[in-house]
């Protein structure tokens, strides 16, 4: 690796002194994007495609919510409804949530944050995007060609023997997509180990990097398990090899063990990078170091590791042994502790800070509220007695939407707003951004809070028709989803219009600390003109803002000293 070489300045060196050349305009044409090895461009490729899948998943959600306004099944056929919630789940989880923070924001800022020119393996990085595209393409084909109605959980023996449609194709798509995650994980881990700028010690790393590191660990260890599991489903479906179907001598519960062995940690693939975003944003907008840096850093790792041994909490009602159930329940309770530690530390960070509520911070506050509720309602599900009643009801639906949408999507949008000026060089309209944050927060609560009540009343999930007495709550939920949808639309317009008429952002519009804020916006193709030497800890907000020198610019300030 080239960590210590400070002089290496390849062909692009001619541009270096030219402040107007950045990663967006150094090359033009579709090929320069599709074959780009620049982590920043790959991040944007991911941004565009994850947004497309978000829209696909969103269409599914919209149809589901409209259908559920009445207790009868009047808009969609039962089969269509089942295909819609499957499409919603598959698109949102595998093709939006899992890649969004790591592959979009992580790709863009991770190398810059540690002072690197790129990730360790730029070609693998591009390959990961292609795996994602092929996987996504296959899944989309399956949806268009006939749909899949297994639910995103693909439970056997339904998925292997009974489900119609293009299940195998979709599964294969998710399998291929798994490689995208593995490659990203390998890449980030190696990058963090090998490519840190001189002086960037482990405990000077921004917490976002710690979070990405923990996430990469889960991606590398977990994804192969689900990939193989899904492949086994395909084998049973196509060649009737008895693995999961008892009629063929298999064990249907085995699938659930294998599936959740990955899919519970996958929850943390989705949320832990969001934790990283929170640390950056909360520090910046209260101009403070993160309270208890090392506790926040290690709690990410603790969550990543513990996350691998709690999968059985999805199976309390399958009739697994009581003692297994108790162990899984207990371990799940343990995870609550590092999670609570994070929340408390972020809150304490504001203490005696200089707090300003710009839109990223508003999103961060939204995250705190929604994730708190998501986490606390998780306790209802890790408590065995209440889980028996709540399992497979709308309570679960509400809980994981609070965690995934309320937590993860809020964190993603928070990060997007925070680094948008860096990515695009433009500022968006603060009024519009704040409006969208408030709309999304309120719409979200109106959509999902009633679902907790529905769930305790016993409304099962994945129901296309339901008893009349649940209607009021469903109507409230649909109304909320409308507000939520409008919120997303405002956000979309806000960000896109910033590209057209947004004010120039400048290197550091938020007065934030960190290497990415010491270089131009948008960054030059190689991020840094010279490899920076780091002499400061993360979040040294007590120091004055500084920029890295641009050669030939006459600017002299070096990296700040502590």
């Amino acid at each position: 690796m080239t960590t210590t070489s400070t002089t290496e300045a390849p062909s692009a060196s001619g541009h270096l002194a030219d402040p107007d050349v950045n990663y967006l305009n150094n090359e033009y044409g579709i090929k320069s994007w599709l074959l780009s090895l620049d982590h920043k461009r790959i991040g944007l490729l991911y941004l565009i495609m994850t947004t497309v899948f978000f829209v696909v998943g969103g269409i599914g959600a919209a149809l589901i919510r409209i259908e559920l306004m009445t207790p009868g099944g009047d808009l969609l056929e039962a089969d269509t409804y089942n295909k819609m919630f499957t499409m919603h789940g598959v698109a949102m989880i595998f093709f939006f949530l899992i890649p969004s923070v790591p592959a979009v924001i992580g790709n863009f800022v991770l190398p810059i944050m540690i002072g690197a020119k790129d990730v360790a393996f730029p070609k693998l990085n591009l390959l990961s995007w292609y795996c994602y595209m092929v996987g996504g393409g296959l899944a989309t084909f399956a949806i268009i060609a006939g749909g899949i109605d297994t639910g995103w959980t693909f439970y056997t023996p339904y998925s292997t023997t009974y489900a119609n449609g293009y299940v195998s194709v979709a599964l294969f798509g998710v399998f291929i997509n798994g490689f995208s995650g593995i490659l990203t994980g390998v890449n980030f881990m190696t990058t963090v180990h090998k490519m840190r700028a001189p002086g960037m010690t482990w405990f000077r790393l921004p917490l976002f990097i710690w979070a990405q590191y923990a996430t990469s660990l889960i991606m590398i260890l977990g994804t192969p398990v689900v990939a193989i599991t899904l492949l086994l489903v395909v084998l049973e479906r196509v060649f009737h090899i008895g693995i999961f179907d008892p009629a063929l001598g298999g064990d249907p519960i085995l699938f659930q063990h294998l599936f959740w062995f990955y899919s519970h940690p996958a929850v943390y693939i989705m949320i832990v990078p969001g934790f990283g975003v929170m640390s950056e944003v909360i520090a910046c907008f209260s101009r403070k170091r993160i309270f208890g840096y090392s506790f926040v850093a290690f709690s990410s790792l603790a969550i990543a590791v513990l996350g691998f041994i709690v999968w059985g909490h999805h199976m309390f009602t399958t009739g697994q042994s009581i003692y297994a159930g108790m162990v899984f329940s207990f371990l799940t309770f343990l995870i609550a502790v590092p999670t609570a530690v994070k929340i408390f530390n972020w809150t304490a960070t504001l203490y005696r800070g200089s707090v300003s509520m710009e839109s990223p911070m508003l999103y961060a506050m939204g995250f705190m509220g929604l994730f708190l509720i998501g986490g606390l309602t998780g306790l209802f599900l890790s408590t065995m007695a209440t889980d028996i009643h709540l399992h497979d009801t709308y309570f679960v639906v509400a809980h994981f939407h609070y965690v995934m949408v309320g937590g993860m999507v809020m964190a993603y949008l928070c990060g997007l707003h925070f680094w948008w000026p860096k990515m695009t060089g433009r500022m968006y309209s603060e009024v519009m951004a704040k409006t969208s944050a408030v709309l999304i927060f309120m719409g979200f609560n109106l959509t999902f809070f009633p679902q907790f009540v529905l769930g305790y009343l016993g409304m099962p999930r994945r129901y296309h028709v339901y008893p009349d007495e649940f209607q009021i709550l469903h109507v409230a939920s649909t109304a909320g989803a409308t507000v939520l949808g409008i919120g997303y639309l405002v956000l979309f317009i806000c960000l896109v219009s910033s590209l057209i008429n947004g004010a120039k952002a400048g290197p550091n519009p938020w007065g934030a600390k960190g290497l990415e804020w010491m270089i131009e916006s948008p960054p030059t193709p190689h991020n840094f003109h010279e490899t920076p030497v780091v002499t400061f800890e993360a979040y040294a907000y007590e120091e004055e803002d500084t920029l890295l020198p641009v050669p030939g610019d006459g600017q002299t300030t070096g990296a700040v000293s502590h």
Partner: protein
Amino acid sequence: MSKDFQLHPDLASTFAWQVDSIYFLLIALSVLFTVGVFTVLIIFSVKYRRRSDDERPKPIHGSTALELAWSIIPLFIAIGVFTLGAEVYFRMYRPPADAIEIFVVGKQWMWKIQHPEGVREINELHIPVNQPVKLTMTSEDVIHAFSVPAFRTKRDVVPGRYTTMWFEANQTGEYHLFCAEYCGTQHSTMTGRVIVMEVDAYQQWLGGGVSGESMVDAGARQFVQLGCATCHKAESGGRGPSLVGIFGGPVQLATGEIVTVDESYVRESILSPGTKIVNGYQPIMPTFQGQISEETLMQLLTYIKSLSESE
């Protein structure tokens, strides 16, 4: 079944208040934490709001004492709630010995229910009030889940094996029965009613049922018709072991391993006899996989169980 809007479900079993009390405790804890954290967040955001752009607040690195406090307090709360939940769960898993045993077969997309007296019903379950009821369940196709929200309990119904659940209804009335595990096209109509009746009314209802043959009798008849009786005689010395008195006890296998004869063991012995061979016998028993329905299997099972009850 309630037709009006409610915020809280009916309480109709002995589990209901046990689960609800943990539920309300958790709500109290959640409100406490949410309100607590949010109050602090709001106070900090207002009190320490940025007043001028050159503010450079003094850094605070953290406090180990605080970190310990806010790790250990949640840890103890977590252990407490875990223990409460596990205790109730334990009870949910242990059916009392005197429970009435009813058999449930799930299939896409209906519930088939068989009472020991022989009465059968579909998508409806009639039970007496204030008596523990144990359901032994299996599925003919995919996984379903038998869920009665008013009883606060549910259990997956899995093909290829028996799962059990129990409850004791303490309120007469009609309650929702849902299939809670997604099972295909008509999943959301795989619903029904649980009807809790006074004991007299229940006895009357049972008497008015169509079939006069109890499950044990039906099982005994099948036992002869399927030819089981040719190998399994009441006394030992037949080609197969005597099945009298085996249920619930230990049996030694040819491998030397000792297993308990329970529902799953009997099921396996009939469907794939080659898997576990009883010590001292030849593996000559034919498999009945695919030849008898889940209902017949349950009748045979009840019959074999009844052979261990007389003593």
